[in-house]
């Protein structure tokens, strides 16, 4: 019996109490999609507002709340849990030949924490003295003084962090303990390497944001004074603590996305991955080096110049492992037999958009230039390219790739191509304009803007319509496939990793007998020595 039918099938209750990693993955997918659409809606409202330079549509206070909530939802409820919680949960055990994760009940608990945190975050919008207006970074002392509902929002982020930590613990232990016979480290699919590296960041960095956010709450509730400049407190220490987590967090977002893309490219190029070890180790390298660059968010904050220099240097170095991955993906196409299926198209688009995002990242990592670009729309452009062009498109690619396996239904590829065209066009109009706006000196988090910025704001807004139109097409297509889709074959793309040996959708216990692995993960051509 497939996992979809087991345990009394349809009942919602049987789902939200299930410890089956696949069901939990699907539960995350459902929640994430819902929140994602909320935040997309907010993003669109913000763009509408920017059609006018002055007062329009919403008040200044409301606009500040909008970008804060948009950022908080997108970061803590969408891109951070994104690929690990959905595809990591669903496929990590399968890819290493296990029946479940190491701690299935803990896994369910993390989903519940996620739900609780998400509800709290939404509650912070509608209860108390108004939605938080600090930006997702909650910088002190503004976040301590503002009368808005910061405490609740921050507590929500804390609970979401807890969920993320538990997931990380689970994945690391699973990879160490539950690999099937013959599944040596160097035979693991690269998505597993990526999720494993991410697990370490989740475990070691997330508690720091946890305590930082708790301090904000304590400060607001009791006035403990640890960040109060009047009592000798240092607002910059808050920023250090915040970014010690939040920079590594951007790698929590991107590394699993890179992992998913690394699964997709060889399947559709029908050949082995180029440079397996380089890609595997570069995931670890990103996790390690990525922990040491946090202060590049603080070059103009008034910190010591020496620190700025060291952190800038390290920022450039952390780009090296990403570069290695990009080159290896490209080389994997060489002499392959490329099938430009939707999943492949989205995966290659990921490479392109992520490269733009990454390259803008290095440009702003330079000390002198950062002073001009910091806190402008350039930064907004950069992070949408990496987070949405990167993680977002990888998420779509992964969904296009694994959808038949997860739900046992095949979708119609054509609308996915149309959606791609719309999104690609809209994306570059929207965020490309933001890069130029930033160069011109348009600060971020601005309700009103000066006249010289107006034209590009309008272009960006028009782009956002195309983007959302594409998104609607894409999701409508998925929904249609869920209901009307033809039954999917067990291996529609000719993939070679373990999930394709299972039925679509997989059995509740994954494998009837645990597999025994004898070779490398991407052996498409039997000539390949294992």
């Amino acid at each position, binding site marked *: 019996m497939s996992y979809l039918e087991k345990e009394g099938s349809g009942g919602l209750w049987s789902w939200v109490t299930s410890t089956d990693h696949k069901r939990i993955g699907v539960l995350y997918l459902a929640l994430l999609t819902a929140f994602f659409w909320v935040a997309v809606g907010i993003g669109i409202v913000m763009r509408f507002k920017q059609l006018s330079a002055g007062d329009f549509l919403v008040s200044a206070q409301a606009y500040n709340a909008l970008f804060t909530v948009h950022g908080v939802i997108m970061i803590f409820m969408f891109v951070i849990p994104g690929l690990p919680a959905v595809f990591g949960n669903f496929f990590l055990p399968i890819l290493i030949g296990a029946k479940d994760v190491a701690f299935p009940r803990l896994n369910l608990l993390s989903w519940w924490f996620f739900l609780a945190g998400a509800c709290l975050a939404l509650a912070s919008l509608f209860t108390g003295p108004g939605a938080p207006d600090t930006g997702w970074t909650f910088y002190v002392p503004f976040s301590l003084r503002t009368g808005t509902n910061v405490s609740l929002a921050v507590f929500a982020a804390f609970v979401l962090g807890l969920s993320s930590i538990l997931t990380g613990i689970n994945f*690391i232990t699973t990879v160490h303990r539950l690999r099937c016979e013959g599944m040596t480290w160097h035979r693991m699919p690269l998505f597993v390497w990526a999720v494993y590296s991410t697990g370490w960041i989740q475990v070691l960095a997330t*508690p*720091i944001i946890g*305590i930082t956010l708790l301090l904000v709450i304590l400060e607001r509730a009791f*006035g403990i004074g*640890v960040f109060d400049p009047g009592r*000798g407190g240092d607002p910059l220490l808050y920023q250090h603590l915040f970014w010690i987590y939040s920079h590594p967090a951007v790698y929590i977002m991107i590394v699993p996305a890179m992992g998913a893309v690394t699964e997709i490219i060889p399947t559709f190029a029908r050949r082995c991955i180029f440079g397996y070890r380089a890609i595997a180790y570069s995931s670890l390298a990103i996790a390690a080096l990525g922990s040491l660059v946090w202060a590049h968010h603080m070059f103009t904050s008034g910190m010591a110049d020496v620190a700025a220099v060291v952190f800038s240097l390290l920022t450039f170095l952390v780009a090296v492992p990403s570069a290695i991955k990009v080159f290896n993906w490209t080389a994997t196409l060489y002499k392959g037999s490329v099938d430009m299926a939707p999943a492949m198209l989205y995966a290659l688009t990921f490479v392109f958009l992520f490269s733009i995002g990454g390259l803008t990242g290095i440009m702003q990592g330079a000390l002198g230039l950062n002073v001009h670009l910091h806190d402008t729309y350039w930064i907004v452009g950069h992070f949408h390219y990496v987070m949405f062009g990167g993680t977002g498109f990888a998420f779509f690619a992964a969904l296009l790739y694994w959808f038949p396996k997860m739900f046992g239904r095949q979708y119609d590829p054509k609308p996915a191509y149309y959606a791609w065209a719309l999104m690609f066009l809209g994306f570059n109009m929207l965020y490309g304009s933001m890069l130029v706006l930033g160069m011109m000196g348009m600060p971020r988090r601005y309700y009103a803007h000066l006249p010289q910025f107006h034209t590009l704001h309008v272009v960006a807004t028009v782009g956002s319509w195309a983007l959302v139109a594409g998104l609607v097409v894409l999701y409508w297509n998925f929904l249609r496939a869920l209901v009307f889709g033809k039954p999917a074959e067990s291996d529609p793309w000719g993939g070679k990793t373990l999930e394709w040996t299972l039925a679509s959708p997989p059995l509740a216990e994954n494998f009837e007998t645990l597999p025994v692995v004898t070779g490398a993960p991407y052996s498409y051509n039997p000539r390949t020595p294992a």
Partner: protein
Amino acid sequence: MSEAGHSDYQGAKIGMWLFLFTELMLFGGLFLLYSGYRSLHPEAFHHASQGLSVLLGTVNTLVLLTSSLFAALALTAVQQGRSAESARWTGLTAALGLVFLLIKAFEWGMKFLHGIYPGSALVKALPQGEGLFFGLYFTMTGLHGLHVLAGVALLSVMALLVRRGTVAQGDCVLLENSALYWHIVDVIWIFLLPLFYLAA
């Protein structure tokens, strides 16, 4: 934490250690703040620390170290099959945890009586940096106290489980993990003692 009928001893322990790392980093953030502020305000920290009782701090350290010993003895006992003795040690560990909390409560109470509590007028009027010291003191010992409280609850349950035989020789990873948790709480206190009570 593992499914019935399938228990992975090593896995459970790895999971527990990973959890301990998160505890370490949670307090790590506070240690980071402490070291930052102490380097910014060395004099103030020195001065404010004189307001804390070295005696109470030291006694509490001894209490906690001893409780850690008991926890370790409890594990050894259950591993060697002496369940009744193990249950006793576990119970004693929890009891010492309570003693620790009582002393802590007394200490906090005295501070409150003297008008030193987070956000009090007195603390606000202190010279720059000294208020920070007390802010950190209440946050760190408070958070630590919460961990002790959780540990006491956990160990009490463990004492019951050991007595009932649910946790016994050859299947004692629950007790082992609880003891690990208790020890990390102890380790954190080992650092809190000199940072707060002996900084004068």
